[in-house]
């Protein structure tokens, strides 16, 4: 397959052929589209536009939890489960990028080896590339691509997360939080954030000492979560021995087929994607407007340092700019 040149728009015929590759889940073209989306290729929006279907029925599962909790090992077992039911399974596995070099060691596949030669499984590793929240900036769009390729379900494994990193819950239908023995004290302080996002709390490594304490701590902290209608299910298992995995798969299955999941799905996804685009484009636009007046962002900073203006005055510029737009709108209505 020919190399894609990084900054040049694809021809319409090339875009069409990539769209067919995705729809027919041809690995090479599908993988290339994922790269274009990840790299922000100029044609990626056009491809995402053509693939977008708000009513898509594919189920998505987020898997999150601290580093080394067994997320990848559990994902591997979940793949097994759906492959036995003859479902095509997609996986997006995010690992941290180094803030120093920008490089990343993407090692989640090591635990998913059993499916490496299976054409019914598509696994894609992504570096977080500076994005905070446990995902990469492109994960949401990569999920759209994989689901368009008729992988169903699609699992998203986050980087090993701390407390504030709950973004996966917003892009997945259901979220599994994987905890392990030894986290008892941390669980106490977790209750305010990450516990609330989970649909299932998986107590993994049940073969290890300390599982009882973990379960007690988790249940205790859930008692304080009273403002939610559905409490997360708590399931003990061991990805190593297989103990409890049946309970996990049946809990996941019953959640996925429940009425709650999928309700508002179209609206939720569309809102999410549009909000992402507003953030991205809004900030591009603001930078452009500032650069137009001050030459560059650094130019604006220099103006502040030389006492000509303040950051707040630069912000005020936008009020004027927006009023300008409104006047134009009103003007055109009167015409």
């Amino acid at each position, binding site marked *: 397959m020919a*190399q894609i040149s990084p900054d040049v728009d694809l021809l319409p015929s090339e875009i069409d052929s990539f769209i067919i590759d995705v729809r027919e889940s041809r*690995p090479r073209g599908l993988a290339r589209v994922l790269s274009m989306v990840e790299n922000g290729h100029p044609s990626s929006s056009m491809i995402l536009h053509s693939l977008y279907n708000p009513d898509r029925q594919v189920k998505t599962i987020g898997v999150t939890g601290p580093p080394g909790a067994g997320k990848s090992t559990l994902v591997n077992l979940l793949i097994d489960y759906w492959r036995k039911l003859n479902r095509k399974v997609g996986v997006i596995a995010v690992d941290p990028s*180094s803030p120093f070099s920008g490089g990343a060691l993407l090692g989640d596949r090591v635990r998913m080896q059993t499916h490496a030669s299976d054409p019914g499984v598509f696994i894609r590793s992504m570096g977080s590339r500076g994005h905070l929240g446990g995902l990469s900036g492109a994960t949401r769009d990569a999920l759209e691509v994989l689901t368009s390729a008729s992988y169903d379900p699609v699992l998203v494994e986050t980087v090993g997360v701390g407390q504030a990193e709950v973004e996966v819950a917003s892009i997945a239908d259901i979220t599994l939080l994987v905890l392990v023995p030894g986290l008892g004290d941390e669980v106490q302080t977790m209750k305010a954030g990450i516990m609330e996002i989970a649909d299932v709390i998986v107590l993994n490594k049940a073969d290890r000492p300390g599982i009882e304490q973990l379960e007690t701590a988790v249940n205790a902290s859930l008692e304080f979560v009273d403002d939610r209608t559905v409490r997360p299910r708590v399931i003990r298992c061991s990805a190593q021995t297989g103990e409890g995995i049946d309970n996990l798969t049946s809990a996941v299955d019953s959640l996925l087929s429940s009425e709650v999941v999928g309700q508002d799905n179209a609206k939720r996804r569309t809102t999410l994607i549009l909000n992402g685009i507003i953030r991205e484009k809004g900030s591009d636009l603001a930078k452009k407007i500032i650069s137009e007046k001050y030459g560059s962002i650094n130019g604006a900073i220099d103006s502040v340092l030389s006492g000509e203006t303040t950051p707040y005055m630069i912000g005020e510029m936008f009020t004027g700019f927006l009023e300008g737009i409104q006047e134009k709108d009103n003007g055109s209505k009167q015409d």
Partner: protein
Amino acid sequence: MDRRIRILIGKPGLDGHDRGAKYIARALRDAGMEVIYTGIRQTPEAIANAAIQEDVDFIGLSLLSGAHNYLFPEVARLLQEKGAADIILFGGGVIPEEDIPALKKAGFKAIFTPGTAASEVIDFIQNEFQSG
């Protein structure tokens, strides 16, 4: 556009020596590359499939067991068969000098033997990436 060099480091066959592969994988990460490490005991088929799904620019294979004369060319053959011959192959490990010409003929751009400094590997990759 945010394009980064993507590389798969894989160990085909039954060889369990993984220190060299991990050392190289970390060095490439520290040089700003995205490195997919797939672990030991991979079939050539699994390596070729993973490389395609991950859309890598390079595959670096590591073998210390002596099975390189079969396993390395087999990965090259599968890439060809799957329409992915544009992925650049290289390798390393305990590989006798006399085996290197045949591996190069099979499509391996470079072979790095014990004692190789990580910087040599990084230079090779960056040169290939720029000229490719």
